[in-house]
C-alpha cells in the first residue's frame, strides 16, 4: 500500500474491512463471498484482495480460489498495541535486579494471550524479538502462557508444567542457540492470575541449574508484581 495518498482514506477503511471479513469468515473464503459480506462492488473487492495479497497480509490458498490471513497481519497488531512504560518504582526494582544478575533481564506483560515486551534489557537485547512474538512457545516466556492455558497438551507443556512446579519458573535450555537459554518467572495480580513475567536470558549453564539466578529473580518478581499489574 505504498502508493496510498491522503485522498484515499476510504481505501484504507475498505482494506481493513476485507481483513476483518477474512478473519470473521475463516481461511479459504472466496472473493465473491467477501464481496457479498462487505456489500462492496466485485471489481473493487478483487482489486483490494490482490493488493493485500501483494503485500502478504493475505495469502491465496493453493487452488488460488480462496483467501487466508497472512502471518504478516501480526505486524498490524504489534503496531496497534499501546506503548506501556514502567513506573519509576518498578524501574528501580528492575534496575537493581539487572545490576546483580549476569545476563538479560526483561519485563513482559501478557495481553490477550500475547506477549507484549514492556522493558527489554538494553545491555543484553532479546535474541529475536519478532520470533518471540510469532512463536512464543519456543521461549520460556511463552511457555508460561501454555501452562496457564488449560487446553494446551503435549510433552512440551508437561515439561513446562514440571519446571514451573519445581522451580517456580519455566525454562528453555539450548533449544534456540546451543549455548544459551532463558527463564521466566510469573508476575501475578492480586487474584493470582498470570499478568506478566520477569524473564532472564543468558548462558545455558545458568538455566540448566537455575537456582542461583532464581534466588535473585524470585524476590524481584514479588516486588515488581504489585507495581506493574
Amino acid at each position, binding site marked *: 500500500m505504498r502508493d496510498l495518498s491522503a485522498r484515499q482514506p476510504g481505501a484504507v477503511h475498505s482494506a*481493513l474491512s476485507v*481483513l*476483518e471479513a477474512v*478473519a*470473521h469468515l*475463516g*481461511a*479459504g473464503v*472466496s*472473493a*465473491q463471498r467477501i464481496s457479498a459480506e462487505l456489500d462492496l462492488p*466485485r*471489481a473493487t473487492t*478483487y482489486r483490494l484482495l*490482490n493488493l493485500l*495479497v*501483494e*503485500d*502478504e497480509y493475505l*495469502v*491465496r*490458498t*493453493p*487452488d*488460488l*480460489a480462496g483467501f*487466508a*490471513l*497472512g*502471518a*504478516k*497481519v*501480526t505486524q*498490524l*497488531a504489534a503496531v*496497534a498495541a499501546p506503548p506501556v512504560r514502567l513506573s519509576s518504582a518498578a524501574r528501580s526494582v528492575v534496575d537493581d535486579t539487572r545490576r546483580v544478575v549476569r545476563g538479560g533481564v526483561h519485563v513482559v506483560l501478557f495481553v*490477550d*494471550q*500475547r506477549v507484549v515486551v514492556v522493558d527489554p534489557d538494553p545491555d543484553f537485547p532479546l535474541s529475536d524479538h519478532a520470533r518471540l512474538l510469532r512463536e512464543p512457545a519456543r521461549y520460556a516466556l511463552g511457555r508460561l502462557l501454555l501452562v496457564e492455558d488449560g487446553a494446551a497438551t503435549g510433552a512440551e507443556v508437561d515439561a513446562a508444567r514440571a519446571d514451573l512446579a519445581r522451580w517456580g519458573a519455566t525454562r528453555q535450555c539450548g533449544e534456540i542457540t546451543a549455548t544459551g537459554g532463558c527463564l521466566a518467572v510469573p508476575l501475578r495480580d492480586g487474584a493470582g492470575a498470570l499478568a506478566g513475567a520477569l524473564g532472564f536470558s543468558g548462558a545455558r549453564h545458568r538455566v540448566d541449574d537455575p537456582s542461583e539466578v532464581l534466588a535473585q529473580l524470585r524476590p524481584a518478581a514479588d516486588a515488581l508484581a504489585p507495581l506493574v499489574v
Partner: protein
Amino acid sequence: MTALSRAIARPDPVAGFGDRSPLHGLERRRIGIVDLAAQSVAAVAPAAAATTVVLLVAGVAPGITVPAIVAAAVLSLCIARTVGVFARRFAAAGGLYTYAARGLGTRAGLATGAALVTGYAAVAMFALLGGAYYATYLLAGLWPGLDRPLATGATLLVEAALVAFVLVRGIRVSARAALVVESLSVVLIVVLLIVLLVNIGPVDVGALVGVSRSGGLDPVALAAGAVIALTAFVGFESAATLGVESISPLRNVPRAITGTVVLSGALYVLAAVTQVAGFTALDADLAASASPVNDLAAAYGLGGWAVVADVGIAASFLACGIGTTTALVRVLFAMSRDGVLPPALGRTHRRFGTPAAAVGAALPVIAGVPLVLLGVGVPVRDAMHVTLSVGAAGYIVSYILVCVAAPVFLRRIGELTVVPAVVAVLSAGALAASLVAFFVDDAAAGGGVVLVVGVLALTAAVVIGLLRRRHAPGSIGRYDEPVAAQVLGGVPSPRHPDDA
C-alpha cells in the same frame, strides 16, 4: 474485540499449505523491479529491433508507419494486461506455460509450453546469430583479412559460453548483465536517434500520422504493418518466468511487463519518427533503403555514428540472448517440476540457486542449430530471418492461448469481471488474425517459415497426445505456492509425495 485481533491473538490452525514451495531450489526473492524489467527489455531487444522493424513496417504500410507501430503497442499493452491477470495472482517459473495450464488444463498448457519453448529457443538462436553477425561486421572493420564464416561461428560459440556462464552464476549476475548490456544499447541508439532528429529539424506531424495522404487511413495496410511491428514487441512477458526469484513478484512482475511494452513502444515511435521524418526531409523512399539509420547518418554527415549504432545493436543481441535463454531454462525447469520433462532437468545449482541442469540441456541446442545452419551453407541473414519468424510464431501462439485462458481462469477462481474478459477476448481475436496474416505473408514469400512451423506443430501435437495420457487433468501448472510459515496459524501439511 474484533474478529481480526482475535484471529491474531489466537490463530485457528490452517491446514493445506506445504512447508516448502514446489519450486524450491531456485534462489528466492532476490531481484528488484529494475533487474526484473531488464530481463523483459533484454528479451525484446528494442535497440536491435528499433533499427530494423521500422524499415519492415514501412515496406507494407508506407505513409502510416507510426500509426501501425502505435497499434501494435496498444495490442501489446492489452496482452500485457491479460498476462497481468495471472501474474498478479500467483508467482510462477513457467511463465505463460503455467498460466495457460492453470486456466485451460493439461493439453492447452502443454501446447502453450511447446509454443513458448519454441519462441524462446528460436529467438535465442536468432540473437546469437545476430550478435555474431554484427560482431564479425565490426571485427572486419578492424581487421579486413578476417575469414568471415569462421569468425561468425567462433563468435557464436563465445557468446553461448558467456550466456551459459552468467545464467549458471546466479540470477543477480544474469539479470544485471542483461541490464548493463541492454542499457548500453538503448542509450547508444536513443542518442543517435536524437542527434539525427535534431539535425533533421522541424517534423511534419501530418506526414507521420498519415492524415496528409489522400484517401485517409488504409485499414488493411495498417493491420499488415501492425502485425510486423508486433513481432518487435514479443518477449515482453518473459519477466513472468522470474516469479520465484523476484522481490514482491505479484506487484513487480506485472509492472515490469507493462513497463517493457511502454519503453519499447516509445523507442520504436522515436525510431519511426526519426526515420520517416528524415526520409521525408531528404525526399527519399524509406522502404527502398537497405539500412535506414546508416543512410540517414551518412546523409546528415554523421557517418562515424553508424559504428555506434552497430555496437549498440551487437550489445542488444547479446542481451537478447541472455534474456530469452533465462526465460527458456525456467520454462524447462517448471515443466520438469510438473513431471512433463525428466526430473533431472529440474535440478538447481546448490550454491547459485539457478536451474543449472536446464541451462546445460538448452545451450548445446541453442548454439548447435545455428552452427549447423551456417555449416550447411545457409547465409547468416537467412538463418536469422527463419529463426526470428519461427520464434515470433511461437510467441504469438502462446499469447493467443494465454488470452483465451485468462477469462476461464478468472471464472474458475470466481473472480471474473467484464473488463479483463473483454480485453482478453479482443486480444485473442486480434492475435489470431495477426497469426493468419503472418502465415499468408510468409506463404507468399516462399513458405519456408510455414513449413518449419508446421513440422514443429505436428511434432508438438504428437508429443502432447502421448504425454496427455501420463498426466491427469490438473496435474500440471505448479506455481510458487505460499508456505505454511506465511499463513497466520499455518500448519505444514505433506502434499507433494513425489517431491523429493
